[in-house]
């Protein structure tokens, strides 16, 4: 099936106002707030946790070289923990995203209602 040619993105669609009205609905605002409440802290956390590794390795070598289990040192375990943390955050995001999906479905329903009213 050939896809229809994309409309020039600069020409405002005839129903431009409907997007603004959707953006103003409570459901949409709640969706954005829910996403922000998860994504912002999660992103800040993973960035800080990640940079803690090169900073510790570069600037606190004595601590990083301390042996924990036989010859295995803090540096290696810290690096391995990065993998675990990344997987855990990914899991938590997928779990949180279920809520985003149901909120997005509510927004799509609102749009249907707005259109039905003949905007």
């Amino acid at each position, binding site marked *: *099936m*050939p*896809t229809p*040619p*994309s*409309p*020039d*993105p*600069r020409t*405002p*669609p005839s129903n*431009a106002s409907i*997007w*603004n009205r*959707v*953006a103003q609905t409570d459901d*949409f605002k709640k*969706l*954005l707030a829910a*996403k922000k409440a998860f*994504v912002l802290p*999660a*992103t800040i956390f*993973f*960035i800080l946790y*990640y*940079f803690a*590794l*090169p*900073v510790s*390795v*570069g*600037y606190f*070598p004595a601590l*990083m*070289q301390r042996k924990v289990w*036989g*010859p*295995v*040192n803090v*540096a*290696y375990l810290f*690096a*391995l923990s*990065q*993998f675990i943390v*990344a*997987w855990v*955050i*990914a*899991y938590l*995001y*997928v779990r949180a*995203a279920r809520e*985003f*999906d149901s909120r*997005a479905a509510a*927004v*799509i329903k609102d*749009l249907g209602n707005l259109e039905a009213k003949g905007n």
Partner: protein
Amino acid sequence: MNTTLILFLAFIAITLGITAWASRLSGSSASYFAANRRISAWQNGVAVAGDYMSAASFLGIAGLIAFFGYDGFMYSVGFLVAYLTVLLVVAEPLRNTGKYTMADVLAYRLHPRPVRAMASLSTITVSTFYMIAQMVGAGALVALLLKGSGISFRLAVTSVGILMIVYVVFGGMIATTWVQIIKAILLISGTILLSFMVLAHFGFSLGAFFTAVSQVHYHAPDGTEVVKDFLTPGLRYKPRYGALDLLSLGIALIFGTAGLPHILVRFYTVPDAKTARFSVVWAMWIIGIFYILTTFLGWGAATIVGRDFIAKNGGNNMSAPLLANALGGPIFFAFISAIAFATILAVVAGLTISASTSFAHDVWTNIIRHGQEHNPGEERRIARIAAFVVGAISIAIAIVLGPTANVAFLVALAFAVAASANLPVILFSIFWKRFNTAGAVAGLATGLLASIVLIFLGPSIMTVDAPTVAPAARHIIQHAPIFPLENPGILSIPLGFIGAILGTLLSKRDPAGEEKFAELQVRANTGLGAEKAVAH
């Protein structure tokens, strides 16, 4: 005929079969550029991993860990954590608002022509540089792996180049995707098997393994024997700038991945944003397991094969194949070498399709043709020509540079440009209402220029070599580096962001663009109006 060559030919035969099958399905633009958007979550996850785990990772990182221990593993960590940026911030909005390229998202509410021109320049720069690095490595490697079969560097580069052109020109995104999937499955299986054999060598005792890793014997260049603890950081990144360089590398890795065009276009091949999300999670499992196992490959090679032997038999890039040879003999060596070959082919095919799609969709259709195809199928025809041209140019440059050229910096450059030019403008177009065309162009231009200039002023290009260094391997400018770091990210990424911010604030507000911000936000977050999968 040697076993390695037979396995190479088997892989080529299978992938050409897939290409022939895919060529009959690639009859529309959605099919050619986006595999009909019907790739499933696991398939796309495996393909993303396949696109990402290049020969530079498999052979290069294993080699770095074999030669420098822990410091090589720092790359591995960054390569996985980077996917959180992709998962949390970029993948879903991109899938919801774009069609075929990264520039679709940027052009959504801005003036499309200048934005697409800059975004396409950045995409083609990243893809081409990355590809030349892969091709030079590929040629040298294939010639080395097939030593004795009479295959030269030139023949190897030309064959790799022609194969990637054939996949992309005839098979489009469908063939490219399946080449990635097969390669990723081969690569992860080979890596698991090799790691298992390393552990078996140490009697399945992690204690014995780590004890050996903590006392690796080898000879320094002056001939004295040294014993090093390969679990200790600092063997590669030494004072005075080592710590800063490591940090700069880390920044480029975790912000660059979410701006790599050949990774981003993969999210257009799935039916919707939810599938894109799950495909990132699949990719994170595979990529994470792979990069944890790179320590077993690298340290296995350092302890079982030994750094001295690897240095005499092809250098650090040969660590993984030589380890396979030591543990499983010539057949296993052939198997691991064939995987390395599959890896190279799949990655260059992914790069070729992202560069040629950007040229056809952004430059041709949207800039030259103002968003409309004049003839049906024109966009695909242009993409095929572009793929051919990009492939031919890469073959030529790789042959001119030759097998010993020092090209590792091109990979660092690709990540730096992706992080400094692409990511800031992607983020601002999605999250900053006031962001405008001048800001996008300024951000892309500053990030691109800053990355290139800082790499050229840095030690990858400017270094005074010892007189003993071979002419082809010498640094391009024999002068002390002006910028002290190999990785420019720590400076070029802030510059990219500042460029985008200043460009926006110093130019007039764009009421039409800001008006469309609500639309972009609704679409990015709900998937309303997103490109649909093509029905059967």
